[in-house]
C-alpha cells in the first residue's frame, strides 16, 4: 500500500547541491501522501554551518585514524569519513530533544549532537574522563543528557532499542521522535524486520535511517540483500521509504525534515535510505581489497559532500578559497586542542574495573 503512494514531483530541484551533483544524485522515490515539502530556504550562513560541521567530523576522524595508527587507540575503530553529510544533514533536521541511536560507527553522531570532541577522544584513549569512562571504547559511547543512546557493537541490535525508545516517547505522550541509524549490512538482521513490524503496527514515532555505504564489511549490498533498493525493505510492513542522496547534506536535511514531520505527527515510522560511501576500510584493520582504488577515488572526486558544499559556496560567491582554508585551519586547531586535552586526562583508575556493574557502583 505504502509502495503505491505518490509524492509531489520536483523534490530534487529544491537542493542547491542537486544541480551541481546531478551526475551522481540518486532519483527520489515516492514519499507517502500528505507530506508537505518543507521549504528549507538556505541562506549562505546555513551552508557555511553545514560545511563547518562536516569538516569538523572529517578532521576529527582523520586524526583518530592517525592516533590509531600510532597505537594510542586500540580495539575496533570504525571511521565515518565520507558519510558526513548524513550525520550533519539529519542532525540539522532533528530537534535536540529527539533521541538518536546508532551502531559502532558512532563518533560523528555523538559529536554532531554536541558532545565535546575531547570526550570522544578521551574515551578512545581509555581515559577516566572519556565519555564512557574508558570502559566502552570506540563502539560504546553514550550521552543520555544529549539524547544520544549509543554506540552498539552487535549489528542490528540498536534497531529494536531505538524502536523501544520510540515506544517510550509515545508512552510518555511526547512529540519527540527517535532517529535510529543502521547499515546496509544490518538491514537484513531479523530483529530489524521485527522492529519494523512493531513500529508500523503501533505507529511509533521513529525515523529509520539506513546508511547505505554500499558495503557491510567486505560484502557489497547486492551480495547480501536480495533487493538492493533498501528503502523498499519497509514495504512488507507498510513503512514508507525514500532513497536520498546521502552525499548531499541538504537533500539529507530535507528528507529528514519531511520524515521527522511524518513521524512526529503520529503517522508512524519512515525509512530513509541514504546512499553514501565510506572512504576508509570497514575498520582500521581492513585493507578494503574488495573494491578498487578507482572506485573510491571516483566517489571522492564526484560526490564528496564537503567538496560539493565548498564548491557551491565559492561559486555562489559566499566565500573564497582562502576563507575556506582559514576555516580548515581553525578546525584543525580545534581538533589538535581536543587531542591534547584528551591526552592530558588521567587514565581510568584501576579500581574502576569493578564499578558500574550494578547501580550500587559495583
Amino acid at each position, binding site marked *: 500500500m505504502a509502495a503505491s503512494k505518490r509524492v509531489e514531483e520536483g523534490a530534487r530541484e529544491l537542493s542547491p547541491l542537486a544541480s551541481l551533483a546531478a551526475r551522481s544524485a540518486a532519483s527520489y522515490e515516492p514519499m507517502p501522501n500528505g507530506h508537505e515539502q518543507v521549504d528549507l530556504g538556505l541562506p549562505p550562513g546555513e551552508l557555511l554551518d553545514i560545511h563547518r560541521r562536516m569538516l569538523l567530523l572529517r578532521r576529527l576522524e582523520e586524526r583518530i585514524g592517525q592516533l590509531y595508527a600510532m597505537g594510542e587507540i586500540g580495539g575496533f575503530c570504525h571511521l565515518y569519513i565520507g558519510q558526513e553529510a548524513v550525520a550533519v544533514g539529519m542532525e540539522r533536521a532533528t530537534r535536540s530533544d529527539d*533521541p538518536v*541511536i546508532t551502531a559502532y560507527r558512532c563518533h560523528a553522531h555523538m559529536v554532531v549532537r554536541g558532545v565535546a570532541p575531547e570526550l570522544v577522544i578521551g574515551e578512545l584513549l581509555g581515559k577516566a574522563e*572519556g*565519555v*564512557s*569512562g*574508558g*570502559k*566502552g571504547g570506540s563502539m*560504546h*559511547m*553514550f*550521552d*543520555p543528557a544529549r539524547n544520544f*543512546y*549509543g*554506540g*552498539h*557493537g*552487535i549489528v542490528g*541490535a540498536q*534497531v*529494536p*532499542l*531505538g*524502536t*523501544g*525508545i*520510540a*515506544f*517510550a*516517547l509515545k*508512552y*510518555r505522550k511526547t512529540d519527540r521522535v527517535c532517529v535510529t541509524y543502521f547499515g546496509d549490512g544490518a538491514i537484513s538482521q*531479523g*530483529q530489524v524486520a*521485527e*522492529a519494523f*513490524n*512493531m513500529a508500523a*503496527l503501533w505507529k511509533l514515532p521513529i525515523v529509520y535511517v539506513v546508511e547505505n555505504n554500499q558495503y557491510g564489511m567486505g560484502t557489497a549490498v547486492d551480495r547480501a540483500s536480495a533487493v538492493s533498493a533498501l528503502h523498499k525493505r519497509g514495504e512488507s510492513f507498510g513503512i514508507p521509504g525514500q532513497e536520498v542522496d546521502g552525499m548531499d547534506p541538504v537533500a539529507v536535511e530535507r528528507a529528514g525534515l519531511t520524515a521527522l514531520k511524518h513521524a512526529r505527527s503520529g503517522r508512524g515510522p519512515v525509512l530513509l535510505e541514504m546512499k553514501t560511501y565510506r572512504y576508509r576500510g570497514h575498520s582500521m584493520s581492513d585493507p578494503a581489497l574488495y573494491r578498487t582504488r578507482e572506485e573510491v577515488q571516483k566517489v571522492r572526486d564526484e560526490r564528496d559532500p564537503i567538496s560539493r558544499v565548498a564548491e557551491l559556496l565559492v561559486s555562489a560567491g559566499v566565500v573564497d578559497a582562502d576563507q575556506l582554508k582559514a576555516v580548515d585551519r581553525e578546525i584543525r586547531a580545534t581538533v589538535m586542542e581536543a587531542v591534547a586535552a584528551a591526552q592530558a586526562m588521567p587514565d581510568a583508575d584501576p579500581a*574502576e574495573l569493578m*564499578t*558500574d*556493574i*550494578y*547501580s550500587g*557502583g559495583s
Partner: protein
Amino acid sequence: MREAIRDAMAEEMRRDESVFLMGEEVAEYEGAYKVSQGLLQEFGPERVVDTPITEAGFAGVGVGAAMMGLRPIVEFMTWNFAMQAIDQIVNSAAKTRYMSGGRLGLPVVFRGPNGAASQVAAQHSQDYGAWYAHVPGLKVVAPFDAADAKGLLTAAIRDPDPVVFLEHELLYGDTGQVPDGEHVAELGRARVVRPGRDVTLVSWSRGVSAVLAAAETLAGQDIEAEVIDLRTLRPLDRATVLGSVQRTHRIVCVEEGWPSCGIGAEVIATVSAEAFDALDAPPRRVSGAEVPMPYAAHLEALALPDVETVVRVAREVCYVDV
C-alpha cells in the same frame, strides 16, 4: 502464586506509571498461563501490551524503553523462547551500565516460566538459571513460594538493574500466605526454610519442594537437614550457604536443570574452596538428567530429581548405611 505475581505487577503499576507489561498474549488473553489476569482491564492497552511473536525484537524494545527511564516488565511466554532474545538481554541490557561508565542504567525485568512443565518435551523444558547466573550485570531470581514471588518481583521491578525473574509453571497453582499490603523482599538473600544440624540441602524454585519432602523423610530417620532456599541465583548468597555448612559439615545441592556448569556446580565449587576444612563428606549434587527433556511421562519423571534420590544422597553424605 499466579496471583502473587499478578499483584506485584498491578501494585507497582499503580504506584509508578513508568511500569508497564509487554509480551505475547499478556493483554487480551491475560497471559498464556493466566498470570496477567485483569491487568488489561485495569491499565489499558498502552500499559499492557500484546506483542507479535518476536522475542528478539520486543526484548530490545523493552530495553530501549528502559533507556528512556520506563520500567518495562518483559514477559516471555516461557524462557525457552528467550534464547531468541538472549543477545538483547546480555549484550544490550546486562552490559550497558558498565560500557557506558555508569551513565546509562536499565531498569528492566524479564520474567516468565522456566524449566520443565509437564510433558512439553525438549524444546519447551530447559532450565536457564545457570546461563543467566553466569553473567555479571544481571540479577537472577527464582522464587519458590507465593510470598517470595510477590516480594521479590516487587523488588525486581523497583531495582535499577536488569533482573531475570525465573518462575515455574508447575508452581503457578500453588497457594501460600502472602503478607498483607506492600511486601518487598531483598534480592540476593537466601533463606533457611528449615533449620537442621546434620546436613545442608540447598535448592531454589520448585526444587525446594522436593528438598523439603526429603528433609521430612530424613527427620523420620533421625537426620536433621537444614534446607536453604537460594531465592536469588545471582548474586548468590554465599554467606548463608557457607554459614550453614560450617554448622552441618555436609552439603547436597539439588537442581532441576542440567548439572554441567550449573548452579549446583557453582555452589559446590564455592563451598569446596571456602569451607574446605568444615566439610566432613564430599559435597554432592542431585540434578536433572543430562538429556534433552523426553516427552513420555515416565521418561520425563526419570529425568527430574526426585525425593528418594535426595534422601539417598543425603544419607550417603551423612555416612548412614553406605
